[in-house]
């Protein structure tokens, strides 16, 4: 292990960075794979219960109108993508930066710090996408049938991808802003409002009867994922025009990623 044995500069930096990126992603996928049941339980349980209680139980008892579950299901796909993306990124990041310092070995890998952040976003998005896809068979099982249009699938996939990225972006911002001592309070302060103001349980246009709440929900980017998902699967329900949703989501993503990567640099480099 002498200095002479090292083929310094033999591998082009770009190739080297790509390899490092792939290895870090492989590490994350391996860890997820080795705890797959835990992962699935973690991401499915919450939407499953929401679906069961609001879609099935309340409907069977006659408290919700017929067709409510059709409206709820796309919203829950949106919710699953955003929340899973956020949780996957934010919680471990706070712990890694603040407590276990596990991330240091990756920060010292021959790749730019922005790429370390990008890997986190990509991995969180992949997990969120997986969880959202799993919700489709779960929905069929719980509800018996789900609203489905093949012609809406491309838009649905776009909504899933944007929702997963949005969740990851929110997670990156939260994960780099929050210190470990505050993790509980911050997450409960952010998580619950996010969960219930994202229009996953009601379509946004119908809120015209509650104008102040309509304004609040318009500020939650998750609203646009829910609306996009409804446009894809239940276009007969009044919804925000898809292109508006896409523009808002892309703009939100740009802002979140910029703030998140900056926060990541601040945590990674003094």
């Amino acid at each position, binding site marked *: 292990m002498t200095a002479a044995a*090292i083929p310094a500069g033999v591998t082009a*930096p770009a190739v080297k960075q790509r390899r490092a990126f792939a290895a870090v992603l492989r590490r994350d996928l391996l860890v997820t794979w080795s705890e797959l049941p835990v992962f699935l339980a973690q991401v499915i349980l919450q939407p499953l219960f929401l679906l069961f209680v609001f879609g099935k139980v309340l409907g069977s008892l006659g408290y919700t109108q017929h067709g409510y579950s059709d409206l709820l299901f796309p919203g829950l796909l949106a919710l699953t993508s955003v929340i899973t993306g956020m949780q996957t990124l934010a919680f471990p990041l706070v712990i890694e930066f603040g407590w276990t310092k596990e991330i240091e070995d990756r920060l010292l890998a021959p790749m730019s710090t922005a790429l370390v952040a990008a890997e986190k976003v990509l991995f969180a998005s992949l997990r969120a996408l997986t969880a959202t896809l799993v919700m489709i068979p779960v929905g069929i099982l719980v509800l018996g049938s789900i609203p489905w249009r093949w012609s809406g699938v491309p838009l649905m996939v776009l909504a899933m991808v944007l929702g997963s990225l949005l969740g990851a972006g929110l997670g990156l911002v939260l994960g780099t802003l929050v210190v470990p001592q505050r993790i509980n309070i911050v997450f409960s302060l952010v998580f619950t409002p996010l969960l219930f103001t994202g229009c996953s349980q009601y379509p946004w246009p119908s809120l015209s009867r509650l104008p102040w709440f309509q304004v609040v929900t318009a500020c939650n980017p998750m609203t646009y994922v829910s609306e996009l998902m409804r446009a894809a699967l239940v276009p007969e329900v009044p919804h925000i025009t898809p292109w508006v949703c896409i523009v808002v989501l892309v703009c939100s993503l740009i802002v979140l990623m910029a703030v998140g990567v900056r926060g990541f640099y601040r945590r990674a480099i003094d």
Partner: protein
Amino acid sequence: MTAVEVSELVKRYPKSTVNAVDGITFEVAPGEVFGLLGPNGAGKTTTVGMLTTRVKPTSGRAMVGGVDVGADAVRARSMLAVVPQRSNLDRSLSIRRNLTFHAAYHGVPAAEASARADDLLEQFGLRERGDVKPDLFSGGQSQRVMIARALMHEPQVLFLDEPTTGLDPAARLFVWDRLRELRERGVTLFLTTHDMHEAALLADRVGIMDHGKLLALDVPEALMRGLPGSSTLELSVHAGENGHTPDSLIGDFERLPGVERVEPLPQDSPEPDDPHWHVRLYVSGEASALVAPTATLLAERGLSLSGVELGEPTLEDVFIHLTGRTLR
């Protein structure tokens, strides 16, 4: 090419009124073991942070393995490895995977990484524990794993931050032995420590740091030799019949070159007519060089030297001399 080259390096943290590192300049040669010694808060960790791309310098330049750390952090990271003070092992992976994934991050091909991991696990006494996750590891075991992990990509410079702080004596000896082996294999080691003994034992050269400045930098022996009057020479003199007393000789001793101060010591024998008396000479430079001159001086006066004891200064003395305070 130097392994580490630092020039006029400065770090001032935001909202701070003083520089954490205040314009330091030094070089470390390939294969050298370099020890940065100083109390907590001296700026050692910040210095290592800048050298290892984790702290952005305010000004100045740092090179590791010939790569400018500030300008090309990505390439610099291939040149170096870091063993932190506290475990940062990946708790979701087994020990062996901690090693092989580290290698993968650095682009080492899988087969090669696997062979290296086997070698290193063996060498660090971890062969049986390769499949264990690091959660339950003691400080000493984690330290061993982290050193092994650091070596997986064959870095040019290995940075160790307080490598044995908090370890029990046996674990400390084990780590010291491994570090000496690495030195023999020509790996450049850069360690920070506030343990004088560790620095004197391992380092080829020691830099002493306080308040962000490098106060002295040399081989340990030279640092100690340069210390005014802290080597001592204690003489036991067999008093003759010709009426010399210790006091009458003090002036003669003080005129010897290198002697700074002379102090007669109280008689340690309870017998009043013990023919020996004792005197301590404070010496700059090496005390042993004064044994012959003092013996000659005594012989000229009809006295004989019956015992000599050399007291060498420690790095601790050097540190106290430079900073006016103890290390902790």
